[in-house]
């Protein structure tokens, strides 16, 4: 008798548990499914395809008879005398643009425009966004003429006042031009993020600092910067990955030159080899191998940032209740 009663009670309980478990799985799957499909199709699958192509000799000439060549393309990259130079260029480009413009200048601009009357600050930020909405080709042509040799370049006309000998600045200082042209555009992203972060600092903190007699620099150093630490880390991480993959302004300004791959960065080199060849035969396989290495570099950089900057803490729930 007792046994029968127990059985009757357990069966419905197990049924509810199974349904609840299923619901626990289906609801998140329903909401995350589309995103998962998109990520798979547009992020994961291209990486797999890139790696597969990198193991072939695919080029324009061999497209109708593609052969598997194993790691030959990677060995060619390893042996090439251009590889280390291009890798070094990539670190120079990412490092300097990130430090001096995309984070450094962006922070300076955000601090300045939040410390002047709001009307002027907003107008200044709007003005600074203009290059970002200008077509890249127009922007690059402006820089080309801006830095052209005498009697054309405005830079020369200006510097002549100070007795500087005119020259083609694009050829004479290609890194300066490339980093500045990229940086002036790139700084606007950080500027917007930092401005909103500074604006979100409770004004009581800043007032308290004023009451305590803190100078402007001390307020920036001890109040503002610590409180916008996470946005800074986000911009550093995001812009690092963004710069690793970006090359459009370099392509338009110097095309990787002048001279011996002076400003050729990894992503531009992959583009040159995989998609652009002056005499028609582009090498998809070799270019894909270069791109695959860039993916690996990007993943390593991401892991480092996630670990070093402890991103999991940033996205964790707050430990105290904030009213």
């Amino acid at each position, binding site marked *: 008798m007792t046994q029968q009663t127990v059985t009757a009670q357990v069966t419905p309980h197990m049924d509810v548990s199974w349904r609840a478990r299923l619901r626990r799985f289906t609801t998140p799957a329903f909401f995350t499914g589309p995103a998962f499909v998109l990520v798979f199709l547009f992020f994961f699958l291209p990486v797999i395809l890139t790696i597969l192509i990198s193991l072939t000799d695919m*080029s*324009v*000439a*061999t*497209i*109708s008879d593609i052969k598997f060549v194993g790691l030959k393309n990677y060995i*060619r990259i390893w*042996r*090439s*005398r*251009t590889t280390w130079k291009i890798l070094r260029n990539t670190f120079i480009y990412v490092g300097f643009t990130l430090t001096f413009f995309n984070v450094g200048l962006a922070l300076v601009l955000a601090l300045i425009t939040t410390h002047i009357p709001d009307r002027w600050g907003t107008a200044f930020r709007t003005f600074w966004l203009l290059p970002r909405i200008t077509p890249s080709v127009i922007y690059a042509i402006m820089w*080309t*003429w801006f830095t*052209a*040799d005498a009697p*054309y370049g405005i830079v020369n006309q200006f510097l002549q006042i100070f007795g500087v000998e005119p*020259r*083609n600045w*694009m*050829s*004479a200082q290609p890194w300066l031009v490339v980093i500045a042209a990229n940086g002036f555009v790139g700084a606007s992203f950080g500027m917007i993020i930092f401005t909103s972060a500074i604006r979100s600092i409770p004004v009581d903190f800043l007032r308290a600092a004023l009451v305590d007699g803190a100078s402007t620099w001390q307020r920036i150093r001890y109040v503002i910067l610590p409180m916008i630490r996470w946005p800074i880390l986000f911009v550093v991480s995001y812009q690092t990955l963004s710069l690793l993959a970006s090359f459009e302004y370099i392509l338009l300004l*110097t*095309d990787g*030159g*002048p*001279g*011996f*791959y*002076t400003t050729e960065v990894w992503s531009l080199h992959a583009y040159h080899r995989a*998609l*652009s*060849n*002056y*005499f*028609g*035969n*582009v*090498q998809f396989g070799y270019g894909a191998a270069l791109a695959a290495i860039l993916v690996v570099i990007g993943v390593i950089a991401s892991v480092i940032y996630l670990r070093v900057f402890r991103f999991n803490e940033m996205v964790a729930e707050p430990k105290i209740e904030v009213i």
Partner: protein
Amino acid sequence: MKRWLLLVTVLLLASLVLAACPQPTPQVVKETVVVTKEVEKVVTKEVEKVVTKEVEKVVTKVVEVEKKPELQVIKLTAWTIGPDEPSFYRRDNLIEAAKRLNKDLEALGSNVRVELEATFDTGDWGDYKQKFILAAQAGNAPDIILSGHEDVAPWGDAGYIIPLTDYIQQYWEETYQDIIPALWKSVEYKGERWAVPQDTEARPMYFSKKLLRDWGWSEDQINALPQQVRAGEFTLYDMLELAKKAQDEGVVEEGYGYWTRPKKGGDFYHIYFAFGGEMQDPETGKLVVVKDALRKWLQFHYDTVFTYKTTPEGFIGTDWKIWHETVSKADKVLFWNGGTWHWAEWTQKYLDGNEDYLWENVGFMLIPAGEPGLSPTTLSHPLVYMVSSNSKNPDLAFRIITLATTADLNSRHAVNSGHLAILQSQFNHPAYKANKFLQEAAYMVEYTNFQPNSPDYGEYDRILWTALSAVMAGDMSVDDAVAFVEDEMQNSLGDKVIFK
């Protein structure tokens, strides 16, 4: 009393007026209304009627008219490029040929007509070729593509274009026997002809008559220079010496003695040929690097920048517009190399059509021999029409190309853009004969070289260009550059390239 009477009278009148006003309470009023209405009444009545009718006899004549079949319009596309703007007849000649084809089809009673959508690109060669490659892979390539002859090999191997040997044979008597025989070599690959030459050119060494005149040279001396070059008496290093001397004596500024092309391109290779270089083995078709010529080629470019200082440091990458504006005036640079098409470009774009200015101030000659005993040279880069394998109507596409390959159409293109003849009959065409520049540059074809038709030429060119631009920028010594070329060729091309 009178006042009382007046008051009573007024009150009485007022009462009467008020009495005439409508009553505020409803009142029953009886009214008689007379309504007049017209009523129609239909009456049926038989009437006798006499009708007089004229009868016409209608004769129907049947004329048999043959019903015309509906016109079938076939749409074709063609992509062409300058990039020099005066070369727009590369597109317009195809459009004219399509019109002629339609007339032929009409005369033959065909119901087929073609509609050609042709474009002319003035952008970058690399972008143009990339666009075609991507379109061909997507199956959307145009029916007709114009490009450099060197694309025959990679695009032929890829299956992007179709071999035209049989088509050419079909119209041999009508058209193609007239093509200058040497040009066929530029479109041959793996025993097939893959394209039809559209134009060719020479790449002369230009010099400023104006500056030489200002320096004290007589007209006879100036006019004798091209002949001295042709005879091998004036070499590339003689040119650098002269340019350096002109700089030292203040005729031109430092860095203005000799200007190369400002950007990547085939022009640099005529210097390699001038030092005895070869690019392709005629027997095996393999690419060739002549090490001695390679070293001298790199050394020459090093010397012009760093030893003689006749070309400015950081020169490569100079904007084309600045280059054209500077050299076309002939008042700053003593020697520079360019193409015959530049003559037309300078006339039309930079000198407001004043060709006389060029004749007065600019001279042209072959690229001088690298050393005594070697031959002067030049480079031709025939552009060619090809039919893409995506074309659903290759017969019609080829027919258009054939009809665009005529003395009148090619001559109008040649005269307008400064390109040389591809047809023997063009030499007798009035427009071509009347063009002084083309006549005077014609002899250069005898000294010309072509770049190789090889699928690996792109990689070969990349390596050579990287080495050359590194040397000119001071990033590599000549020895390092030679070693770099050997290593990279070995790494990238292996036994596909022969070192001599």
